[in-house]
């Protein structure tokens, strides 16, 4: 019971409540588009974008912006659109372009921080942006509100365009041939993913975002067979793991992002086994 008491004690702190609210919202949003990203082979774009977001964050830090959210959001959304364009049009391998941009953004970001940072603890700062070690625990009320609004937008987009997202993911040619504006929806998906990535940076840092997007989808796909059940399952999976991970990290003082991802990995293992079991029974 000592653990529960300790938990109750921590829960009375506002920063813990904020962290939990933000964590649940972010993990919910990031899981919804996971299936689409994995199946459209877009997951590498998510990875690239998270590095771009890191670069933008470094620029914001150098410019000493107190509110860095708008800048990071704008840069990431624009990169998402550009990446999607190059992926579709040019015959230069899309994934090579993404790798170039993402590594470039990472390097420039670190370089900028190194050159201009006045902080005494540079490697600590970098580590924080990459692994999000503590930022989720230092959210202000305004951060939580921004996070809430963006999450509602992401959720609304997902629900309203659910059928279109399904069509475009399952069979883009058919969707296009029968009058669905597939490129518009691809663009929408890219922009929403960019928003999710900027949000998720607070939770797990820019290096671990892909885990938040991919683990729930891959786990749910092991066990469930329809798009709807996979989507619902990934949402529940993601929220549960994020909440568990947050609580564990608060209780035991481990870094938030890595703890959440560790919980994701364990849960994936469970689903993997469940999938095998189900298959052997069928």
């Amino acid at each position, binding site marked *: 019971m000592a653990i529960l008491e300790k938990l109750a004690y921590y829960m009375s702190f506002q920063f813990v409540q904020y962290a939990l609210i933000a964590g649940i919202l972010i993990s919910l949003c990031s899981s919804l588009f996971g*299936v689409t990203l994995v*199946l459209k082979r877009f997951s590498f774009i998510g990875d690239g974008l998270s590095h771009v977001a890191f670069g933008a964050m470094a620029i914001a830090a150098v410019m000493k912006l107190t509110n860095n959210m708008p800048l990071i959001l704008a840069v990431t959304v624009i990169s998402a659109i550009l990446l999607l364009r190059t992926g579709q049009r040019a*015959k230069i391998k899309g994934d090579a372009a993404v790798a170039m941009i993402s590594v470039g953004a990472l390097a420039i970001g670190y370089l900028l921080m190194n050159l201009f940072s006045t902080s005494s603890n540079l490697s600590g700062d970098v580590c924080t942006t990459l692994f999000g070690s503590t930022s989720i625990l230092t959210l202000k009320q305004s951060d939580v509100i921004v996070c809430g609004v963006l999450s509602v937008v992401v959720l609304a987009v997902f*629900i*309203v*365009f*659910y*059928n279109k997202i*399904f*069509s475009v*993911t*399952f*069979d883009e*040619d*058919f*969707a*296009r*041939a*029968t*009058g*669905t504006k597939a490129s518009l929806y691809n663009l929408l998906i890219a922009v929403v993913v960019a928003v999710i990535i900027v949000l998720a940076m607070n939770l797990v840092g820019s290096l671990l975002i892909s885990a938040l997007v991919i683990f729930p989808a891959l786990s*749910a*796909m092991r066990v*469930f*067979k*329809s*798009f*709807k*059940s*996979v989507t619902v399952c990934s949402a529940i999976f993601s929220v549960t793991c994020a909440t568990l991970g947050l609580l564990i990290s608060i209780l035991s003082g481990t870094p938030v992002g890595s703890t959440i991802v560790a919980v994701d990995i364990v849960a994936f293992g469970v689903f993997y086994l469940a999938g095998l079991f189900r298959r052997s029974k069928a």
Partner: protein
Amino acid sequence: MAYLTARDISLGYEGEKIVTGLCFEVDPGDYLCIVGENGSGKSTLMKTMLGLIPPLGGTIERGDGLQKNEIGYLPQQSLIQRDFPASVTEIVLSGCRGEGGFRPFHSRSDKEAARANMERMGISHLAKRCYRELSGGQQQRVLLARALCATKKILLLDEPVAGLDPKVTAEMYSLIEELNRDDGITIIMISHDIAAAIKYADRILHVGRSVFFGTKDEYLGSENYLRLTKAGES
């Protein structure tokens, strides 16, 4: 006015031409069969008709008020996501386009159409099954049901009977004939089954090094027909 008018179009990928000098028209109510050898460019032509890829030369136009959301399409197998988690019902429903305007959810009439088309294709008992766990022929029927949901005026079929057993093949041909005759749906079908093409189609488009477009009686006397059938015998 015709639904589709192609004037001297060339087909291909990345500037490399596969077929040149195609001229044809598809009128409302037509039953057109596209024939030709493997790799001659039939699927490419169908994608060009659908506006998925641009022609390398010439023009192809939609006319007579044909809207994109009145088109049904059955792609050639194997192009679809292999490991996609989706139930049969979800896939068939995704063919329902709704009449104009944007609606976020499927209406009751959409669901009814999906149910009816699954019944027509004899896959009602598979409704809840996962698409990727079906046999090739069953998958083909799912995609056909989806195409039927999307069809209002015209149906484009890329090898619709590939992978179907003889009984279902025969049913498929009579179903397509029924759609054409009774519902006035225009049919464009790619097929390697020359006998069936000649039996059911009004017009034939032969794609290859030399192209042919005309009625089936004209086709029976043409060199293209003789060459295609001879090659099969030797």
